[in-house]
């Protein structure tokens, strides 16, 4: 078969997805993977973000740690410098690899348990010493908690863990505030009792004194002395009831678990805030709203009472009308958040509608939507591929709602985004976490971590965050920075291999959605392997093919590079349906880029317009300068050349006008003080406190110049150390010694 016929067969496959003739191979069973993933066959040998440790009782930021970072912490503590330390380091790093392998095989448990399990494997060998050393080293573990690999369970577990941390912090704050208020309110009641008739009875007085000393006092005589309480000692009945009610509400609330060591005050126990569908969460929120209002109202009343600021005439009517409309996000932020983890199979159309309603309502509900598929066969058009509208598109829709925290990411990126996830869980309003975890059952030879991370690499499930708390504009709120090479259509990496002549070849390779789909054996029909002998120049890599205009794509066939289990390179040509999906994927990515400020069409248009205007302006300036230079070069008749040699700058009207002499402010004949400079030293007010007075800022001014004599004005000016009193001219011509006083006043004019 000649080359043209071979290419014809490839082209037919690209157009129809059908293999005609025997030159193209199906890829089913070949166990191929994208060439860029050739180096990631055994993840257990790599130190990377997974597995993670969900650390219990950690401070913020350290509640989700990678196994490697925990091991590094241990090594810093136990491995000294030198040969001994190096030996221990090697043992511990081997143990880390062992734990990673255990987890990859499905082992679960806390890190300390897995550590012991892995150390036992070393003990069972011929040399028991490393195992024993490692068991001993395990005691240095400071961070312990559940160990999780990147898998189907990860998103819900991580989110629940971070959510729990936030709730613990909220409970701590609440108990500190409510406890302090309860102590203050109890103090008020106790003080009232001590001052009451009841509190001053002999029995009460006796009960307030320690046992050994009760016999040395005459409590009856003491009671007689104290019997008459003062009028101010009585606690108003309304206030007593209010305080007692506030204490009762604070003690019986069910939103926060009772602190350790205290008896629960409510039989029913604390409320549950974890749900697996939106409707249940909303129903629980509605049911508890009256209690939320009561507790918020009580906290305010208790605060006012504790500060002694409750004014019944003013506050009673307002608190009587206190309803749900008075509660804003900041008030709600003090209460526990609701967490809804929607299982992947349950995200159907009714749930979607409810979810969007919840997000739009502004309720403090955090929702996890886990996505298993980003590509699926279109239910409308047979044989075509559709992006999973049920899950993957939710986040894009949610960012259109105001004040909703939205985070979309693949599960492989959750460790890197742990602080942002924490921020979303802790924020006051609603939050949506859309996480791609990959299918629950394996559909490729790739481990779940690589499936998740390649979905993000291929822009099939891009990562983004929209955080309303970060600012008021898109530039502050929206971020694409967690994607690899976010400014490019596809991330590019270098691939190095040996060619047939064993020469080292290195080339840049983009990772497109076609590469991602090639990892999924369910979509193997969209690819066909081309034997090396049939490779030709009309075959283009998918990113290059997509970059062509439609007319230039004719006659070209896109392919992806893949490797088999022996790391031999293969070219897989791609059918048109998948390339159509790839084009859609790229366009959706570009829309996201625009939101993230990358290649923003509005900004680029504005930039182009401004650049054109700037260039035109410069052209005009250049032309006028050129004209001026030419005019200067040709001397005007009757004018000396020297006078015109230098181009004159246009003279502005202001400059051209003769300088206006600014009339000097005529000194006033009235006395005055530079009040702003007064240091309140009392010198002047002691001379005459009707003539000199202090203003609202305790600084002197002349209140009444006629309330004293000119002599007093002059003496005040002389006594003022800052010399800011100006006596002016005499106001009463008949005052004795005026000539001398006028002379003395001259320095203060």
């Amino acid at each position, binding site marked *: 078969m000649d080359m043209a016929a071979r290419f014809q067969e490839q082209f037919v496959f690209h157009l129809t997805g059908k293999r005609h003739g025997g030159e193209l191979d199906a890829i089913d069973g070949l166990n191929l993977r994208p060439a860029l993933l050739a180096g990631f066959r055994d993840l257990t040998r790599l130190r990377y973000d997974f597995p993670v440790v969900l650390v219990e009782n950690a401070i913020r930021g350290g509640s989700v740690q990678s196994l490697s970072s925990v091991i590094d912490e241990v090594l810093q503590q136990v491995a000294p410098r030198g040969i001994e330390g190096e030996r221990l380091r090697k043992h511990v790093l081997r143990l880390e690899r062992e734990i990673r392998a255990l987890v990859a095989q499905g082992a679960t448990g806390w890190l300390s348990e897995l550590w012991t399990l892995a150390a036992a494997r070393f003990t069972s060998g011929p040399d028991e010493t490393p195992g024993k050393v490692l068991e001993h080293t395990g005691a240095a573990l400071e961070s312990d908690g559940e160990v999780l690999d990147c898998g189907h369970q990860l998103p819900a577990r991580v989110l629940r863990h971070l959510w729990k941390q936030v709730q613990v912090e909220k409970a701590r704050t609440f108990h500190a505030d409510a406890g302090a208020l309860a102590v203050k309110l109890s103090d008020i009641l106790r003080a009232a009792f001590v001052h009451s008739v009841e509190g001053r009875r002999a029995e009460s007085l006796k009960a307030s004194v320690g046992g050994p000393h009760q016999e040395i006092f005459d409590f009856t005589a003491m009671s007689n002395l104290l019997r008459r309480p003062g009028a101010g000692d009585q606690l108003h009945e309304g206030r007593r009831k209010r305080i007692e009610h506030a204490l009762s509400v604070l003690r019986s609330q069910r939103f926060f678990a009772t602190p350790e060591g205290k008896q629960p005050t409510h039989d029913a126990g604390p409320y549950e805030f974890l749900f697996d569908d939106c409707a249940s969460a909303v129903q629980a929120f509605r049911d508890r709203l009256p209690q939320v209002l009561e507790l918020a109202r009580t906290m305010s009343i208790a605060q006012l009472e504790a500060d002694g600021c409750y004014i019944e005439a003013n506050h009673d009517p307002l608190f009587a009308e206190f309803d749900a409309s008075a509660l804003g996000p900041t008030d709600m932020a003090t209460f526990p958040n609701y967490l809804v983890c929607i299982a992947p199979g349950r995200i159907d159309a009714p749930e979607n509608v409810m979810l969007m309603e919840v997000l739009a309502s502004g309720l403090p509900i955090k929702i996890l939507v886990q996505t298993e598929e980003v590509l699926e066969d279109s239910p409308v058009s047979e044989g075509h591929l559709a992006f999973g509208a049920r899950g993957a598109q939710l986040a894009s829709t949610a960012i259109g709602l105001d004040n909703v925290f939205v985070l979309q990411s693949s599960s492989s990126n959750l460790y890197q985004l742990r602080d942002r996830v924490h921020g979303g869980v802790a924020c006051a309003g609603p939050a949506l976490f859309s996480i791609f975890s990959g299918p629950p059952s394996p559909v490729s030879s790739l481990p779940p971590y690589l499936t998740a991370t390649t979905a993000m690499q291929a822009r099939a499930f891009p990562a983004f965050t929209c955080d309303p708390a970060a600012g008021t504009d898109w530039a502050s709120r929206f971020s694409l920075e967690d994607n690899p090479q976010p400014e490019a259509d596809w991330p590019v990496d270098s691939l190095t291999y040996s060619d047939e002549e064993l020469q080292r070849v290195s080339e840049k390779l983009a990772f497109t959605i076609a590469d991602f789909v090639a990892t999924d054996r369910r979509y193997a029909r969209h690819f066909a392997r081309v034997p090396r002998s049939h490779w030709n120049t009309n075959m283009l890599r998918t990113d290059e093919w997509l970059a062509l205009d439609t007319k230039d794509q004719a006659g070209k066939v896109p392919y992806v590079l893949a490797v088999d289990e022996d790391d031999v390179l293969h070219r897989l040509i791609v059918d048109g349906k998948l390339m159509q999906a790839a084009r859609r994927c790229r366009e959706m990515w570009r829309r996201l880029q625009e939101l993230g400020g990358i290649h923003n069409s509005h900004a680029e248009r504005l930039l182009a317009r401004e650049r054109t205007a700037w260039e035109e302006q410069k052209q005009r300036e250049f032309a006028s300068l050129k004209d001026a230079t030419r005019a200067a070069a040709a001397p005007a008749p009757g004018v000396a050349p020297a006078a015109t040699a230098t181009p004159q700058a246009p003279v502005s009207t202001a400059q051209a006008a003769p300088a206006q002499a600014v009339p000097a402010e005529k000194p006033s004949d009235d006395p005055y003080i530079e009040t702003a400079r007064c*240091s309140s030293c009392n010198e002047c007010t002691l001379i005459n406190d009707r003539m000199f007075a202090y203003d609202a800022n305790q600084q002197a001014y002349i209140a009444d110049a006629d309330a004293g004599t000119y002599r007093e004005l002059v003496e005040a000016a002389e006594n003022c150390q800052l010399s800011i009193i100006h006596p002016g001219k005499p106001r009463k011509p008949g005052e004795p010694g005026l000539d001398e006083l006028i002379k003395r006043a001259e320095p203060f004019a």
Partner: protein
Amino acid sequence: MTMPATQCLIRLHQEHHSLEDYQGGVPRWCSGCGDNAILAAIQRVCRDEDLRPEKTMFVSGIGCSSRLPHYMKTYGFHGIHGRAFPVAEGIKMARPDLHVFVNTGDGDCCSIGAAHWIHAIRYNMNMTVMLHDNHVYGLTKKQASPTSPLGLKSNTTPRGSQLAALNPLSVTLGVQNVSFVAQAVDWVPEVMYDIMSAAFRHRGFSFVRIIQRCPEFLPKMFEPWLHDPQKTLLLSHKDGLQISAGLSKTYRNQQEHDPSNIDRAREIASLEDPLPVGILYRNPQVPCYEDLRHPAQMRTPEFIRAGFEAELDKVTVWPDQDAQTQRAA
């Protein structure tokens, strides 16, 4: 972000105070004394920050300066010589909700109270400190103080003092955990008010040295600075003081200084002529001692009683075995 409705309700009927609400009596200082200017400025700060008088505390030691709490209609503690800081620290520790101000003089703070001063800086508790520095012991009729200039003739140094003056700014800036240092002069009241406002708003130990006149015993000491504005160097910065246009006409000698630069602050602190006025250093990141020592568990009466019982049980001798067994059970 809007204020939560509950906070609005709490603040709805908040009282607003006038200057008179803080004026506690007629000051007995000499006329022309710089203490009057300090009193006027701090009363303005209290009014403008709307501090509740019953939540405000002025603590002082001994000296002319330390009479200031008497003239405030707030709580006050006129303490003993040099011990204003320990008293203020105790108050802040027990009642962190109070606004604590300390008024101390150059003798009270820099001589007998110097040890307390150094450690108060280290503690960095949230309080505003005004060091009234008139370079002399005035209440006891003119003795040399630690900040008296070399050669000052006084009752204790009739031939002139022989030691160079201590610089309170340099000392404060040399202590660990320093978080706010400023210098004001009583004859520029506008700047003194701004500095005191900034000092009050800073969370931590805000140390303001106020150079003040003593017209009775050192009447000529600051005359050159009073009559020549060029001898006063105003420090301005977007994160520090912003000098008004009116003031800039008189005080043209200005310099931009970033209050976060401690090295430059130390250089400026050592200047004597021109006299630097403004915020020399500010670091809001330094932790406050009361926050570090804040108990994790609230000290309720029940908690304290339980603690006492537990401690006493350690040394209790139980008379018979049965009682002990019952107790253990």
